[in-house]
Protein backbone atom coordinates (compact mmCIF):
# COMPACT_ATOMS: atom_id res chain seq x y z
CA UNK A 1 0.00 0.00 0.00
CA UNK A 2 2.03 2.91 1.20
CA UNK A 3 5.33 3.34 -0.52
CA UNK A 4 7.02 5.82 1.70
CA UNK A 5 10.68 6.14 0.79
CA UNK A 6 11.47 7.61 4.20
CA UNK A 7 10.86 4.47 6.17
CA UNK A 8 13.40 1.72 6.42
CA UNK A 9 11.85 -1.45 7.76
CA UNK A 10 14.99 -3.51 7.43
CA UNK A 11 16.85 -1.00 9.52
CA UNK A 12 14.26 -0.13 12.13
CA UNK A 13 12.54 -3.46 12.43
CA UNK A 14 15.45 -5.81 12.18
CA UNK A 15 14.55 -7.64 15.32
CA UNK A 16 11.01 -8.26 14.26
CA UNK A 17 12.02 -9.75 10.97
CA UNK A 18 13.13 -12.85 12.77
CA UNK A 19 11.13 -15.97 13.38
CA UNK A 20 7.52 -15.92 14.29
CA UNK A 21 7.35 -12.19 14.82
CA UNK A 22 8.24 -11.56 11.22
CA UNK A 23 4.76 -11.19 9.81
CA UNK A 24 3.64 -8.77 12.43
CA UNK A 25 6.80 -6.79 12.11
CA UNK A 26 6.39 -6.52 8.36
CA UNK A 27 2.81 -5.48 8.76
CA UNK A 28 3.58 -2.69 11.17
CA UNK A 29 6.72 -1.68 9.33
CA UNK A 30 4.56 -1.02 6.30
CA UNK A 31 2.79 1.75 8.11
CA UNK A 32 3.76 4.97 6.47
CA UNK A 33 4.99 7.91 8.46
CA UNK A 34 1.70 9.66 7.80
CA UNK A 35 -0.22 6.77 9.33
CA UNK A 36 1.97 6.71 12.39
CA UNK A 37 1.78 10.49 12.61
CA UNK A 38 -1.99 10.29 12.59
CA UNK A 39 -1.91 7.87 15.45
CA UNK A 40 0.56 9.99 17.35
CA UNK A 41 -1.47 13.13 16.82
CA UNK A 42 -4.62 11.40 17.96
CA UNK A 43 -2.88 10.66 21.22
CA UNK A 44 -1.59 14.09 21.86
CA UNK A 45 1.94 13.51 20.63
CA UNK A 46 3.17 16.13 18.22
CA UNK A 47 4.66 14.20 15.29
CA UNK A 48 6.57 17.27 14.16
CA UNK A 49 8.16 17.62 17.58
CA UNK A 50 9.09 13.95 17.52
CA UNK A 51 10.74 14.40 14.14
CA UNK A 52 12.48 17.53 15.39
CA UNK A 53 13.86 15.57 18.31
CA UNK A 54 15.25 13.04 15.89
CA UNK A 55 16.83 15.70 13.71
CA UNK A 56 18.37 17.40 16.73
CA UNK A 57 19.73 14.09 17.87
CA UNK A 58 21.26 13.40 14.47
CA UNK A 59 22.83 16.86 14.39
CA UNK A 60 24.17 16.36 17.87
CA UNK A 61 25.72 13.04 16.98
CA UNK A 62 27.27 14.43 13.83
CA UNK A 63 28.69 17.37 15.75
CA UNK A 64 30.07 15.08 18.39
CA UNK A 65 31.55 12.83 15.76
CA UNK A 66 33.27 15.81 14.15
CA UNK A 67 34.47 17.17 17.47
CA UNK A 68 35.59 13.76 18.61
CA UNK A 69 38.29 13.53 15.99
CA UNK A 70 40.13 16.55 17.36
CA UNK A 71 39.10 16.73 20.97
CA UNK A 72 41.24 15.11 23.63
CA UNK A 73 39.52 13.20 26.37
CA UNK A 74 39.76 15.53 29.29
CA UNK A 75 38.46 15.69 32.80
CA UNK A 76 36.40 18.72 33.80
CA UNK A 77 39.53 19.97 35.54
CA UNK A 78 41.49 19.73 32.34
CA UNK A 79 43.40 16.57 33.13
CA UNK A 80 44.10 14.37 30.17
CA UNK A 81 43.13 10.76 30.75
CA UNK A 82 44.31 7.61 29.03
CA UNK A 83 42.23 6.33 26.15
CA UNK A 84 41.38 3.05 27.81
CA UNK A 85 40.28 4.71 31.02
CA UNK A 86 38.19 7.25 29.16
CA UNK A 87 36.51 4.57 27.12
CA UNK A 88 35.86 2.47 30.18
CA UNK A 89 34.25 5.41 31.91
CA UNK A 90 32.07 6.16 28.92
CA UNK A 91 31.07 2.56 28.64
CA UNK A 92 29.83 2.26 32.21
CA UNK A 93 26.81 4.53 31.97
CA UNK A 94 25.87 2.97 28.65
CA UNK A 95 25.76 -0.46 30.22
CA UNK A 96 23.96 0.90 33.24
CA UNK A 97 21.32 2.70 31.22
CA UNK A 98 20.77 -0.35 29.09
CA UNK A 99 20.18 -2.51 32.12
CA UNK A 100 17.77 0.01 33.58
CA UNK A 101 15.90 0.26 30.30
CA UNK A 102 15.69 -3.50 30.06
CA UNK A 103 14.45 -3.69 33.64
CA UNK A 104 11.81 -1.09 32.92
CA UNK A 105 10.73 -2.98 29.85
CA UNK A 106 10.54 -6.17 31.85
CA UNK A 107 8.38 -4.43 34.42
CA UNK A 108 5.97 -3.38 31.72
CA UNK A 109 5.91 -6.77 30.14
CA UNK A 110 5.34 -8.33 33.51
CA UNK A 111 2.13 -6.40 33.84
CA UNK A 112 3.36 -4.14 36.58
CA UNK A 113 3.69 -0.40 36.42
CA UNK A 114 6.56 0.96 34.46
CA UNK A 115 9.06 1.99 37.07
CA UNK A 116 11.26 3.88 34.70
CA UNK A 117 14.32 4.98 36.56
CA UNK A 118 15.94 8.13 35.33
CA UNK A 119 18.56 7.16 32.86
CA UNK A 120 20.74 10.18 33.38
CA UNK A 121 22.33 8.82 36.49
CA UNK A 122 25.48 10.81 37.28
CA UNK A 123 28.59 8.95 36.37
CA UNK A 124 30.56 7.68 39.35
CA UNK A 125 33.72 9.62 40.03
CA UNK A 126 36.94 7.76 39.42
CA UNK A 127 38.26 6.31 42.65
CA UNK A 128 41.87 5.92 41.69
CA UNK A 129 44.36 8.52 40.61
CA UNK A 130 44.54 8.86 36.89
CA UNK A 131 47.99 9.18 35.38
CA UNK A 132 48.35 11.73 32.69
CA UNK A 133 49.70 10.95 29.26
CA UNK A 134 50.72 13.38 26.59
CA UNK A 135 48.41 11.94 23.94
CA UNK A 136 45.23 13.37 22.36
CA UNK A 137 42.72 10.57 22.38
CA UNK A 138 39.55 10.75 20.27
CA UNK A 139 36.16 11.75 21.71
CA UNK A 140 33.29 9.36 22.30
CA UNK A 141 32.81 7.03 19.35
CA UNK A 142 29.57 7.86 17.60
CA UNK A 143 28.29 4.32 18.01
CA UNK A 144 28.58 4.65 21.79
CA UNK A 145 26.72 7.94 21.74
CA UNK A 146 24.11 6.45 19.45
CA UNK A 147 23.63 3.54 21.79
CA UNK A 148 23.26 5.85 24.78
CA UNK A 149 20.62 7.81 22.96
CA UNK A 150 18.93 4.61 21.86
CA UNK A 151 18.87 3.41 25.45
CA UNK A 152 17.30 6.66 26.56
CA UNK A 153 14.67 6.32 23.85
CA UNK A 154 13.99 2.73 24.89
CA UNK A 155 13.56 3.82 28.46
CA UNK A 156 11.09 6.41 27.31
CA UNK A 157 9.36 3.78 25.21
CA UNK A 158 9.00 1.56 28.27
CA UNK A 159 7.27 4.39 30.08
CA UNK A 160 5.04 5.10 27.09
CA UNK A 161 4.13 1.45 26.66
CA UNK A 162 3.47 1.20 30.39
CA UNK A 163 1.02 4.06 30.02
CA UNK A 164 -0.52 2.29 26.97
CA UNK A 165 0.59 5.10 24.67
CA UNK A 166 1.33 2.57 21.99
CA UNK A 167 1.92 4.85 19.02
CA UNK A 168 4.35 7.00 20.96
CA UNK A 169 6.06 3.87 22.27
CA UNK A 170 6.48 2.49 18.78
CA UNK A 171 7.79 5.80 17.53
CA UNK A 172 10.43 5.87 20.26
CA UNK A 173 11.40 2.29 19.51
CA UNK A 174 11.69 3.06 15.81
CA UNK A 175 14.02 5.95 16.50
CA UNK A 176 16.05 3.79 18.86
CA UNK A 177 16.23 1.00 16.31
CA UNK A 178 17.67 3.35 13.72
CA UNK A 179 20.37 4.46 16.13
CA UNK A 180 21.13 1.02 17.49
CA UNK A 181 19.86 -1.84 15.31
CA UNK A 182 21.69 -4.41 17.42
CA UNK A 183 19.94 -3.32 20.60
CA UNK A 184 16.59 -3.68 18.85
CA UNK A 185 17.23 -7.40 18.60
CA UNK A 186 17.49 -7.82 22.38
CA UNK A 187 14.53 -9.86 23.58
CA UNK A 188 12.97 -7.34 25.99
CA UNK A 189 13.06 -4.70 23.28
CA UNK A 190 11.78 -6.96 20.51
CA UNK A 191 9.03 -8.22 22.81
CA UNK A 192 8.03 -4.72 23.84
CA UNK A 193 7.96 -3.70 20.18
CA UNK A 194 5.82 -6.67 19.19
CA UNK A 195 3.47 -6.04 22.08
CA UNK A 196 3.13 -2.36 21.23
CA UNK A 197 2.52 -3.17 17.58
CA UNK A 198 -0.22 -5.64 18.45
CA UNK A 199 -1.80 -3.28 20.94
CA UNK A 200 -1.76 -0.35 18.53
CA UNK A 201 -3.47 -2.39 15.86
CA UNK A 202 -6.09 -3.65 18.30
CA UNK A 203 -6.66 -0.17 19.59
CA UNK A 204 -7.22 1.24 16.15
CA UNK A 205 -9.39 -1.48 14.67
CA UNK A 206 -13.12 -1.05 14.57
CA UNK A 207 -14.74 -4.40 14.08
CA UNK A 208 -18.25 -5.69 13.77
CA UNK A 209 -18.31 -8.56 16.17
CA UNK A 210 -20.80 -11.38 16.13
CA UNK A 211 -22.84 -12.91 18.89
CA UNK A 212 -21.03 -14.85 21.57
CA UNK A 213 -20.39 -18.38 20.41
CA UNK A 214 -18.01 -21.09 21.50
CA UNK A 215 -14.50 -20.49 20.23
CA UNK A 216 -13.21 -22.78 17.54
CA UNK A 217 -9.97 -23.41 15.73
CA UNK A 218 -10.89 -23.76 12.06
CA UNK A 219 -8.87 -26.34 10.16
CA UNK A 220 -6.97 -23.89 7.99
CA UNK A 221 -6.03 -21.67 10.88
CA UNK A 222 -5.10 -24.72 12.93
CA UNK A 223 -2.76 -25.80 10.15
CA UNK A 224 -1.13 -22.37 10.12
CA UNK A 225 -0.82 -22.49 13.89
CA UNK A 226 0.95 -25.83 13.72
CA UNK A 227 3.26 -24.74 10.94
CA UNK A 228 4.24 -21.57 12.77
CA UNK A 229 5.21 -23.52 15.87
CA UNK A 230 6.96 -26.48 14.24
CA UNK A 231 10.19 -24.52 14.31
CA UNK A 232 10.14 -24.97 18.10
CA UNK A 233 9.64 -28.74 18.01
CA UNK A 234 10.35 -30.39 21.37
CA UNK A 235 9.28 -27.36 23.39
CA UNK A 236 7.50 -28.21 26.63
CA UNK A 237 4.34 -26.30 27.46
CA UNK A 238 1.75 -26.52 30.20
CA UNK A 239 -1.77 -26.04 28.88
CA UNK A 240 -3.79 -24.65 31.78
CA UNK A 241 -7.41 -24.78 30.72
CA UNK A 242 -10.33 -23.41 32.66
CA UNK A 243 -12.99 -26.00 33.38
CA UNK A 244 -16.31 -25.72 31.61
CA UNK A 245 -18.11 -26.64 28.45
CA UNK A 246 -16.68 -23.79 26.40
CA UNK A 247 -12.95 -23.75 27.04
CA UNK A 248 -12.43 -27.49 27.08
CA UNK A 249 -13.05 -28.24 23.39
CA UNK A 250 -10.83 -25.31 22.42
CA UNK A 251 -8.15 -26.71 24.70
CA UNK A 252 -8.47 -30.05 22.99
CA UNK A 253 -7.90 -28.47 19.57
CA UNK A 254 -4.98 -26.46 20.82
CA UNK A 255 -3.41 -29.49 22.46
CA UNK A 256 -3.76 -31.44 19.23
CA UNK A 257 -2.29 -28.64 17.13
CA UNK A 258 0.62 -28.17 19.53
CA UNK A 259 1.31 -31.88 19.57
CA UNK A 260 1.27 -31.94 15.76
CA UNK A 261 3.89 -29.18 15.90
CA UNK A 262 6.06 -31.47 17.99
CA UNK A 263 5.51 -29.69 21.29
CA UNK A 264 5.36 -31.66 24.52
CA UNK A 265 2.05 -30.75 26.11
CA UNK A 266 1.17 -31.21 29.76
CA UNK A 267 -2.47 -30.57 30.54
CA UNK A 268 -3.28 -30.53 34.25
CA UNK A 269 -6.89 -30.95 35.29
CA UNK A 270 -7.94 -27.65 36.88
CA UNK A 271 -10.96 -27.17 39.11
CA UNK A 272 -11.13 -23.41 38.61
CA UNK A 273 -9.95 -20.89 36.03
CA UNK A 274 -6.42 -19.59 36.38
CA UNK A 275 -6.06 -16.28 38.14
CA UNK A 276 -3.15 -13.88 37.93
CA UNK A 277 -2.93 -11.12 40.53
CA UNK A 278 -6.36 -12.15 41.73
CA UNK A 279 -8.01 -11.70 38.34
CA UNK A 280 -9.43 -14.55 36.30
CA UNK A 281 -7.57 -14.90 33.02
CA UNK A 282 -10.01 -14.62 30.12
CA UNK A 283 -9.31 -15.53 26.51
CA UNK A 284 -5.73 -16.86 26.31
CA UNK A 285 -2.51 -15.73 27.88
CA UNK A 286 1.08 -16.85 27.48
CA UNK A 287 3.18 -16.90 30.66
CA UNK A 288 6.90 -17.53 30.67
CA UNK A 289 9.24 -17.85 33.62
CA UNK A 290 11.72 -14.98 33.74
CA UNK A 291 14.60 -17.41 34.12
CA UNK A 292 13.47 -19.64 31.26
CA UNK A 293 16.14 -20.41 28.69
CA UNK A 294 16.39 -18.59 25.42
CA UNK A 295 14.68 -21.32 23.42
CA UNK A 296 11.68 -21.19 25.74
CA UNK A 297 11.54 -17.41 25.60
CA UNK A 298 11.63 -17.59 21.84
CA UNK A 299 8.91 -20.25 21.82
CA UNK A 300 6.77 -18.05 24.06
CA UNK A 301 6.97 -15.22 21.55
CA UNK A 302 6.10 -17.58 18.73
CA UNK A 303 3.18 -19.04 20.65
CA UNK A 304 1.62 -15.64 21.35
CA UNK A 305 1.97 -14.70 17.71
CA UNK A 306 0.57 -18.00 16.48
CA UNK A 307 -2.47 -17.68 18.73
CA UNK A 308 -3.22 -14.30 17.20
CA UNK A 309 -2.71 -15.80 13.79
CA UNK A 310 -5.38 -18.32 14.77
CA UNK A 311 -7.60 -15.31 15.59
CA UNK A 312 -7.69 -16.12 19.28
CA UNK A 313 -7.57 -13.15 21.59
CA UNK A 314 -4.27 -13.36 23.44
CA UNK A 315 -2.11 -11.48 25.86
CA UNK A 316 1.55 -11.95 26.65
CA UNK A 317 4.11 -13.29 26.76
CA UNK A 318 4.02 -12.07 30.31
CA UNK A 319 6.24 -12.98 33.19
CA UNK A 320 4.86 -15.99 35.03
CA UNK A 321 4.06 -15.38 38.68
CA UNK A 322 6.61 -16.79 41.11
CA UNK A 323 6.01 -20.41 41.92
CA UNK A 324 4.02 -21.19 38.81
CA UNK A 325 6.31 -24.15 38.32
CA UNK A 326 6.39 -24.28 34.56
CA UNK A 327 8.80 -22.47 32.26
CA UNK A 328 6.08 -21.94 29.65
CA UNK A 329 2.35 -21.94 30.26
CA UNK A 330 -0.54 -21.32 27.91
CA UNK A 331 -3.58 -20.31 29.93
CA UNK A 332 -6.93 -20.82 28.24
CA UNK A 333 -9.54 -18.99 30.24
CA UNK A 334 -13.25 -18.56 29.84
CA UNK A 335 -14.39 -16.34 26.98
Amino acid at each position, binding site marked *: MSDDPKRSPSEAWQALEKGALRDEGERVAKLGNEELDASLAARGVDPEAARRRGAELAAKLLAQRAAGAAQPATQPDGKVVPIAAARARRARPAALTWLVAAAAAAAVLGGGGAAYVALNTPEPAPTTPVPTVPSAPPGPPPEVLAKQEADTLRGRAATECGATHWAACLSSLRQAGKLDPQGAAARPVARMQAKAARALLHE*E*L*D*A*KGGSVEARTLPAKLAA*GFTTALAEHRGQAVTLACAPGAEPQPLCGWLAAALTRAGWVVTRPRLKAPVTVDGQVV*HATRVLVAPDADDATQSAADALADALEGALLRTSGPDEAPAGSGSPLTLVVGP*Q
Partner: protein
Amino acid sequence: MVGAAAAALACHAPASISTGDAGAGAGAGAEEATPTPTCVDTLDARLAEAHTLYPGPLRTAVVDATFLYVDVDRSPFFDDAVALAPRVLAALRNGRIAPHPLCPVTVYVFGSRARFEQHCSDHRYVPDGTRNWGVWDPLRRDVVVDLSGGRAHVPTTAHELTHVVMLADFEAPRWFRECVGTLYEAPVFPRDGDIAGEDNWRYGALRTAVAAHDPRAHLGALFGMSDLAFRGDSASTSALNEAMARATCQWLDERGALWPFYRAWRDARADAGDLDGVAAFRRIRGQTPAEADPDWRAWVLRRGG
Protein backbone atom coordinates in the same frame (compact mmCIF):
# COMPACT_ATOMS: atom_id res chain seq x y z
CA MET B 1 -10.44 -1.59 -15.37
CA VAL B 2 -11.27 0.83 -12.66
CA GLY B 3 -13.01 3.60 -14.53
CA ALA B 4 -12.82 6.46 -12.10
CA ALA B 5 -9.55 8.27 -12.30
CA ALA B 6 -7.75 7.37 -9.17
CA ALA B 7 -8.12 10.65 -7.44
CA ALA B 8 -6.12 10.40 -4.30
CA LEU B 9 -8.38 12.76 -2.50
CA ALA B 10 -12.06 12.54 -3.13
CA CYS B 11 -14.46 15.18 -1.98
CA HIS B 12 -18.12 14.69 -1.27
CA ALA B 13 -19.42 14.84 -4.76
CA PRO B 14 -22.59 12.83 -5.31
CA ALA B 15 -21.81 9.19 -4.73
CA SER B 16 -20.96 7.35 -7.90
CA ILE B 17 -19.93 3.86 -8.97
CA SER B 18 -17.64 2.65 -11.68
CA THR B 19 -16.82 -1.00 -12.16
CA GLY B 20 -14.12 -3.07 -13.73
CA ASP B 21 -12.68 -6.53 -14.05
CA ALA B 22 -9.05 -5.74 -14.10
CA GLY B 23 -6.18 -8.10 -14.49
CA ALA B 24 -2.95 -7.34 -12.76
CA GLY B 25 -1.20 -4.43 -14.35
CA ALA B 26 -4.28 -3.25 -16.18
CA GLY B 27 -3.98 0.03 -14.36
CA ALA B 28 -6.65 2.10 -12.79
CA GLY B 29 -7.59 4.29 -15.67
CA ALA B 30 -5.95 6.39 -18.30
CA GLU B 31 -5.68 9.45 -16.17
CA GLU B 32 -2.70 9.94 -13.97
CA ALA B 33 -3.30 9.67 -10.26
CA THR B 34 -3.21 12.98 -8.50
CA PRO B 35 -0.71 12.90 -5.69
CA THR B 36 -1.56 15.00 -2.70
CA PRO B 37 0.38 15.67 0.44
CA THR B 38 -2.45 14.28 2.52
CA CYS B 39 -2.91 10.75 1.27
CA VAL B 40 -0.19 8.15 1.34
CA ASP B 41 -1.41 6.33 -1.74
CA THR B 42 -3.86 6.27 -4.60
CA LEU B 43 -6.58 4.00 -5.90
CA ASP B 44 -4.05 2.79 -8.48
CA ALA B 45 -1.67 1.73 -5.76
CA ARG B 46 -4.48 0.05 -3.89
CA LEU B 47 -5.55 -1.85 -6.96
CA ALA B 48 -1.99 -3.03 -7.45
CA GLU B 49 -1.86 -4.13 -3.84
CA ALA B 50 -5.12 -6.04 -4.19
CA HIS B 51 -3.66 -7.88 -7.19
CA THR B 52 -0.55 -8.69 -5.22
CA LEU B 53 -2.62 -10.14 -2.42
CA TYR B 54 -5.04 -11.92 -4.74
CA PRO B 55 -3.45 -12.60 -8.12
CA GLY B 56 -5.56 -13.30 -11.14
CA PRO B 57 -8.64 -11.64 -12.56
CA LEU B 58 -10.29 -9.55 -9.91
CA ARG B 59 -13.64 -7.88 -10.11
CA THR B 60 -13.52 -4.37 -8.72
CA ALA B 61 -15.66 -1.29 -8.42
CA VAL B 62 -14.97 2.23 -7.30
CA VAL B 63 -17.54 4.12 -5.31
CA ASP B 64 -17.37 7.85 -4.89
CA ALA B 65 -13.87 7.90 -6.36
CA THR B 66 -12.70 6.83 -2.91
CA PHE B 67 -13.74 3.28 -2.10
CA LEU B 68 -12.12 0.50 -4.11
CA TYR B 69 -14.37 -2.54 -3.73
CA VAL B 70 -12.58 -5.82 -4.38
CA ASP B 71 -14.49 -9.04 -5.00
CA VAL B 72 -11.90 -11.43 -3.63
CA ASP B 73 -13.68 -14.72 -4.22
CA ARG B 74 -16.69 -14.09 -6.42
CA SER B 75 -19.11 -13.31 -3.65
CA PRO B 76 -22.70 -13.53 -4.94
CA PHE B 77 -23.46 -10.39 -2.93
CA PHE B 78 -20.63 -8.20 -4.19
CA ASP B 79 -22.93 -6.17 -6.43
CA ASP B 80 -25.37 -5.70 -3.58
CA ALA B 81 -22.59 -4.40 -1.38
CA VAL B 82 -21.45 -1.97 -4.06
CA ALA B 83 -24.98 -0.79 -4.72
CA LEU B 84 -25.59 -0.14 -1.04
CA ALA B 85 -22.59 2.14 -0.61
CA PRO B 86 -23.83 5.29 -2.42
CA ARG B 87 -27.12 5.20 -0.54
CA VAL B 88 -25.36 4.90 2.78
CA LEU B 89 -22.78 7.58 2.01
CA ALA B 90 -25.37 10.02 0.71
CA ALA B 91 -27.52 9.55 3.80
CA LEU B 92 -24.61 9.85 6.23
CA ARG B 93 -23.56 13.09 4.59
CA ASN B 94 -27.08 14.45 4.62
CA GLY B 95 -27.13 16.46 7.84
CA ARG B 96 -25.49 13.74 9.86
CA ILE B 97 -21.74 13.37 9.56
CA ALA B 98 -20.02 16.43 8.14
CA PRO B 99 -18.50 15.54 4.78
CA HIS B 100 -14.73 15.74 4.48
CA PRO B 101 -12.28 14.81 1.75
CA LEU B 102 -11.29 11.18 2.15
CA CYS B 103 -8.18 9.32 1.22
CA PRO B 104 -8.69 6.08 -0.71
CA VAL B 105 -10.00 3.03 1.08
CA THR B 106 -10.00 -0.59 -0.09
CA VAL B 107 -13.07 -2.67 0.70
CA TYR B 108 -12.28 -6.39 0.51
CA VAL B 109 -15.49 -8.36 0.11
CA PHE B 110 -15.38 -12.07 0.91
CA GLY B 111 -17.94 -14.70 0.05
CA SER B 112 -16.06 -17.46 1.81
CA ARG B 113 -15.64 -17.59 5.54
CA ALA B 114 -12.33 -19.44 5.25
CA ARG B 115 -10.84 -16.83 2.90
CA PHE B 116 -12.04 -14.04 5.16
CA GLU B 117 -10.46 -15.72 8.17
CA GLN B 118 -7.20 -16.20 6.34
CA HIS B 119 -7.12 -12.53 5.41
CA CYS B 120 -7.84 -11.58 9.03
CA SER B 121 -5.17 -14.00 10.22
CA ASP B 122 -2.59 -12.58 7.84
CA HIS B 123 -3.31 -9.09 9.14
CA ARG B 124 -3.84 -10.10 12.78
CA TYR B 125 -7.42 -8.81 12.92
CA VAL B 126 -8.17 -10.65 16.14
CA PRO B 127 -11.78 -10.35 17.35
CA ASP B 128 -12.65 -9.10 20.82
CA GLY B 129 -15.34 -11.70 21.03
CA THR B 130 -15.83 -14.91 19.16
CA ARG B 131 -15.74 -13.74 15.59
CA ASN B 132 -15.74 -10.72 13.36
CA TRP B 133 -18.02 -10.09 10.43
CA GLY B 134 -16.36 -6.89 9.37
CA VAL B 135 -13.27 -4.87 10.15
CA TRP B 136 -12.16 -1.29 9.56
CA ASP B 137 -8.40 -0.93 9.80
CA PRO B 138 -7.68 2.81 9.81
CA LEU B 139 -3.93 2.23 9.74
CA ARG B 140 -4.09 0.49 6.39
CA ARG B 141 -7.35 2.17 5.40
CA ASP B 142 -8.80 -1.23 4.59
CA VAL B 143 -12.31 -2.49 5.17
CA VAL B 144 -12.81 -6.25 5.21
CA VAL B 145 -16.26 -7.81 5.22
CA ASP B 146 -17.49 -11.38 5.42
CA LEU B 147 -20.65 -11.91 3.38
CA SER B 148 -20.58 -15.68 3.71
CA GLY B 149 -23.67 -15.45 5.88
CA GLY B 150 -25.77 -14.34 2.95
CA ARG B 151 -27.56 -11.22 1.76
CA ALA B 152 -28.54 -10.29 5.30
CA HIS B 153 -24.89 -9.52 5.97
CA VAL B 154 -24.48 -6.99 3.16
CA PRO B 155 -25.21 -4.09 5.56
CA THR B 156 -22.04 -4.98 7.42
CA THR B 157 -20.45 -2.78 4.78
CA ALA B 158 -22.65 0.09 5.97
CA HIS B 159 -21.33 -0.38 9.49
CA GLU B 160 -17.76 -0.15 8.28
CA LEU B 161 -18.35 2.75 5.86
CA THR B 162 -19.82 4.68 8.76
CA HIS B 163 -16.55 4.25 10.64
CA VAL B 164 -14.62 5.57 7.66
CA VAL B 165 -16.61 8.77 7.20
CA MET B 166 -16.97 9.34 10.94
CA LEU B 167 -13.24 9.11 11.55
CA ALA B 168 -12.70 12.06 9.23
CA ASP B 169 -15.16 14.16 11.21
CA PHE B 170 -15.01 13.18 14.85
CA GLU B 171 -12.29 11.32 16.71
CA ALA B 172 -14.78 9.88 19.16
CA PRO B 173 -14.25 7.31 21.88
CA ARG B 174 -14.69 3.74 20.79
CA TRP B 175 -18.09 3.33 22.42
CA PHE B 176 -19.54 6.19 20.39
CA ARG B 177 -17.91 5.03 17.17
CA GLU B 178 -19.58 1.69 17.70
CA CYS B 179 -22.79 3.39 18.75
CA VAL B 180 -23.09 5.01 15.33
CA GLY B 181 -21.50 2.20 13.33
CA THR B 182 -23.63 -0.59 14.74
CA LEU B 183 -26.79 1.45 14.25
CA TYR B 184 -26.40 1.21 10.50
CA GLU B 185 -25.54 -2.44 10.33
CA ALA B 186 -29.28 -2.96 10.15
CA PRO B 187 -30.25 0.08 8.08
CA VAL B 188 -33.54 1.23 6.64
CA PHE B 189 -33.87 4.03 4.12
CA PRO B 190 -37.18 5.81 4.68
CA ARG B 191 -36.45 8.03 1.67
CA ASP B 192 -33.49 9.04 -0.45
CA GLY B 193 -30.88 10.69 1.68
CA ASP B 194 -32.33 9.33 4.88
CA ILE B 195 -31.19 6.40 6.96
CA ALA B 196 -32.15 4.84 10.26
CA GLY B 197 -31.34 1.67 12.14
CA GLU B 198 -33.82 -0.97 13.12
CA ASP B 199 -33.74 -3.56 15.88
CA ASN B 200 -31.31 -6.40 15.39
CA TRP B 201 -29.84 -9.48 17.01
CA ARG B 202 -27.73 -7.55 19.46
CA TYR B 203 -30.69 -6.79 21.68
CA GLY B 204 -31.38 -10.32 22.89
CA ALA B 205 -28.55 -10.39 25.41
CA LEU B 206 -29.09 -6.73 26.29
CA ARG B 207 -32.76 -7.27 27.13
CA THR B 208 -31.77 -10.16 29.36
CA ALA B 209 -29.14 -8.07 31.11
CA VAL B 210 -31.45 -5.10 31.63
CA ALA B 211 -34.28 -7.32 32.87
CA ALA B 212 -31.89 -8.96 35.31
CA HIS B 213 -30.69 -5.54 36.53
CA ASP B 214 -27.16 -6.40 35.51
CA PRO B 215 -25.18 -3.54 37.08
CA ARG B 216 -23.19 -3.16 33.86
CA ALA B 217 -26.27 -2.49 31.75
CA HIS B 218 -27.39 1.10 32.08
CA LEU B 219 -27.26 4.19 29.91
CA GLY B 220 -24.74 6.05 32.06
CA ALA B 221 -22.24 3.20 31.83
CA LEU B 222 -21.00 4.24 28.41
CA PHE B 223 -20.39 7.91 29.06
CA GLY B 224 -16.76 8.21 30.05
CA MET B 225 -16.03 4.55 29.38
CA SER B 226 -12.46 4.07 28.18
CA ASP B 227 -11.75 2.31 24.91
CA LEU B 228 -10.10 -0.48 26.83
CA ALA B 229 -13.05 -0.96 29.14
CA PHE B 230 -15.41 -0.93 26.19
CA ARG B 231 -13.54 -3.80 24.61
CA GLY B 232 -13.83 -5.64 27.92
CA ASP B 233 -11.77 -8.56 29.05
CA SER B 234 -14.30 -11.15 27.98
CA ALA B 235 -16.44 -11.86 24.96
CA SER B 236 -19.67 -11.39 26.90
CA THR B 237 -18.64 -7.97 28.21
CA SER B 238 -17.58 -6.89 24.75
CA ALA B 239 -20.89 -8.03 23.27
CA LEU B 240 -22.91 -6.36 26.01
CA ASN B 241 -21.09 -3.06 25.54
CA GLU B 242 -21.64 -3.18 21.78
CA ALA B 243 -25.34 -3.80 22.33
CA MET B 244 -25.62 -0.96 24.82
CA ALA B 245 -23.85 1.36 22.40
CA ARG B 246 -26.19 0.45 19.57
CA ALA B 247 -29.25 0.83 21.77
CA THR B 248 -28.06 4.25 22.86
CA CYS B 249 -27.79 5.56 19.32
CA GLN B 250 -31.05 4.02 18.19
CA TRP B 251 -32.82 5.39 21.26
CA LEU B 252 -31.39 8.86 20.63
CA ASP B 253 -32.18 8.71 16.91
CA GLU B 254 -35.81 7.83 17.52
CA ARG B 255 -36.02 10.97 19.63
CA GLY B 256 -34.41 13.14 16.97
CA ALA B 257 -31.49 13.66 19.32
CA LEU B 258 -28.69 11.56 17.87
CA TRP B 259 -27.27 14.04 15.40
CA PRO B 260 -27.72 17.14 17.56
CA PHE B 261 -25.91 15.21 20.30
CA TYR B 262 -23.23 14.09 17.85
CA ARG B 263 -22.56 17.63 16.70
CA ALA B 264 -22.61 19.10 20.18
CA TRP B 265 -20.20 16.53 21.51
CA ARG B 266 -17.94 16.63 18.46
CA ASP B 267 -17.64 20.41 18.67
CA ALA B 268 -17.00 20.34 22.40
CA ARG B 269 -14.29 17.73 22.08
CA ALA B 270 -12.68 19.68 19.28
CA ASP B 271 -12.18 22.39 21.90
CA ALA B 272 -10.85 19.81 24.36
CA GLY B 273 -14.03 19.92 26.41
CA ASP B 274 -16.76 17.49 27.46
CA LEU B 275 -14.57 14.44 27.34
CA ASP B 276 -17.30 12.07 28.47
CA GLY B 277 -20.20 13.52 26.49
CA VAL B 278 -22.39 14.10 29.52
CA ALA B 279 -22.59 17.86 29.03
CA ALA B 280 -23.62 17.48 25.38
CA PHE B 281 -26.19 14.89 26.34
CA ARG B 282 -27.64 17.14 29.00
CA ARG B 283 -27.74 20.07 26.62
CA ILE B 284 -29.63 18.09 24.01
CA ARG B 285 -31.87 15.97 26.23
CA GLY B 286 -32.27 18.28 29.22
CA GLN B 287 -31.25 15.51 31.60
CA THR B 288 -28.17 13.48 32.42
CA PRO B 289 -27.68 9.94 31.13
CA ALA B 290 -28.41 8.66 34.63
CA GLU B 291 -31.67 10.59 34.70
CA ALA B 292 -32.60 9.26 31.27
CA ASP B 293 -31.78 5.70 32.22
CA PRO B 294 -35.31 4.58 33.24
CA ASP B 295 -36.69 5.64 29.87
CA TRP B 296 -33.80 3.95 28.06
CA ARG B 297 -34.24 0.72 29.99
CA ALA B 298 -37.95 0.61 29.29
CA TRP B 299 -37.21 1.20 25.62
CA VAL B 300 -34.64 -1.62 25.58
CA LEU B 301 -37.13 -4.04 27.07
CA ARG B 302 -39.55 -3.28 24.23
CA ARG B 303 -37.00 -4.05 21.52
CA GLY B 304 -37.27 -6.89 19.08
CA GLY B 305 -34.38 -8.63 17.43
